[in-house]
């Protein structure tokens, strides 16, 4: 599903942020991406959700070379990826329901085709009674769940989550982790970037450890 070969990344003329990163992730896998602040987690995630291109090396996602992908192909690949941002990135002028339905609306589906799916998913993540609420009035945990619901509504093959438990209490963190595990059981590959080691101890999954831009795989 994802194959990186000696991938390097630097911004402009600055120092290397990632050095010779190589890994191969299979469909249906679950990985934690860990490392200290500034180790390159967010940069690696940005490469994975095609926000930037590698400076060196070869990178393949879903069999496509992403180092040379044109914008049209990137949009196509992104439809197979669900992303959960640390800062949620919900659109404040849309209700929770509209935010979650956004990917399907963007993909050109008719509302009658997805309306019930969106409602069901929101109930599943515990936001059944907050469907009409706007993001500014949601709590941190509710926003996080809405962001996760938006990431998975399109049944992505890969889910990337950047510090998904960074803004919630430990109890909510455990609940969200269970949600990711459940999604993984349903067939979605999951990569969770976190520096919360306690979270990683709650589920036995391989860890992609970043240290000074270099990647080591544990487990």
């Amino acid at each position, binding site marked *: 599903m994802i194959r990186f070969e000696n991938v390097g990344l630097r911004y402009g003329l600055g120092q290397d942020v990632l050095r010779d990163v190589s890994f191969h992730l299979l469909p249906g896998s679950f990985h934690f991406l860990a490392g200290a602040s500034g180790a390159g987690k967010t940069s690696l995630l940005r490469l994975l*959700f095609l*926000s930037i291109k590698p400076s060196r090396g070869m990178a393949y996602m879903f069999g496509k070379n992403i180092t040379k992908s044109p*914008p*049209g192909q*990137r*949009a*196509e*690949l*992104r*439809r197979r*990826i669900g*992303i959960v941002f640390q800062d949620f*990135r919900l*659109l404040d*002028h*849309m*209700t929770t*329901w*509209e935010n979650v*339905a*956004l*990917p399907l*609306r*963007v*993909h*050109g589906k008719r*509302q009658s085709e997805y*309306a*019930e799916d*969106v*409602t069901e998913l929101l109930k599943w993540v515990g936001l059944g009674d907050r*469907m*009409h609420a706007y993001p500014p009035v949601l709590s941190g945990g509710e926003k996080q769940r809405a962001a996760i619901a*938006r990431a998975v509504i*399109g049944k992505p093959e890969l889910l990337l989550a950047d510090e998904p438990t960074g803004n919630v209490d430990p109890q909510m963190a455990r609940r969200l982790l269970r949600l990711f595990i459940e999604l993984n059981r349903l067939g979605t590959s999951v990569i969770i970037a976190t520096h919360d080691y306690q979270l990683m101890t709650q589920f036995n999954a391989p860890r992609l450890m970043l240290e000074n831009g270099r990647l080591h795989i544990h487990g």
Partner: protein
Amino acid sequence: MNTHTPQARLPAVAPPQKKPRPPRARAPIVPAGSVTGRSLGVVIGIMVFLACLTAGAVYIVNQSASAWLRDIASEVTVQIKPEGATEEVEKTANGVVSFLNGQNGIRNASLLTLDQSAELVEPWLGQISAIKDLPLPRLVAVQIDRDSPPDITTLRAALGTKYPAAMLDDHRAWQSQIRRVTGSLAMAGLAIIALVATATVAIVVSAARSAIASNRDIVEVLNFVGAEERFIARQFELHFLKLGVKAGIVGATAAGFVFLSMPLIAEYMSGAANAEYRRLVGTGRLDFMGYFALMAVVVVIAAICQLTSRYGVRRILDAQNQ
């Protein structure tokens, strides 16, 4: 325990409830207020107003010029040089009238009196009693049958052979001057409309850039959920199209009111010269085709808003995605 409460009287099985309808996505993906502000609408409205005024003015001038040309084309003038005794000139003039009335393609030829000839030169010389003493040429006004006009060259030659003192003027010089003037006015009008269109393009491109900058978060989210550039551009262009149509209708309506009240404005501004003004541009009102031209301006400006924003947004997104 009281069993006669209203709840106790409810039937054991509740009536089937209507299944609640799922919520609907109503909000536009990009909020209108963040794309096109009121000031942009005002600017585009003014642009449309100016373009409509120009288009309407050019249309009126062209219509008036066409009317002049029609009038001129249906009439020729014969001048008889005032050479020799007055009786001789009078005899020649009457002979010319008889000759012309006998030709095919001529509806009527009539001799202008000396008073009428004097009136024609009055605007240049003023009302002086000496006008009649001047050696003014005698004029014959000739109405041409528009359906079967005569061959002017042949007629001129025949007239010249029989009456050497008579000169036939078909106002060709006037016609070409009128055509040149109206052509120049039309070109100037088109140049003004082109300038307005260019300014509108520049404003919309700038507004599109601002709209993308102020909606960067939304554009990023749309990118991450797999929206194609054309989908994102469409979210912006729809707002610009609506703005173009709304501002266009307001601007064109304002220009329409100006043309409707043109006779009043002309009377107020030109005063005694109003008759001359009317002779030049008629009533100054637009006919149906004139108002159609104003609507065409609205369509063009709305299309400029839509297409410019589409290509502007796509270019900006392209640059961002490189």
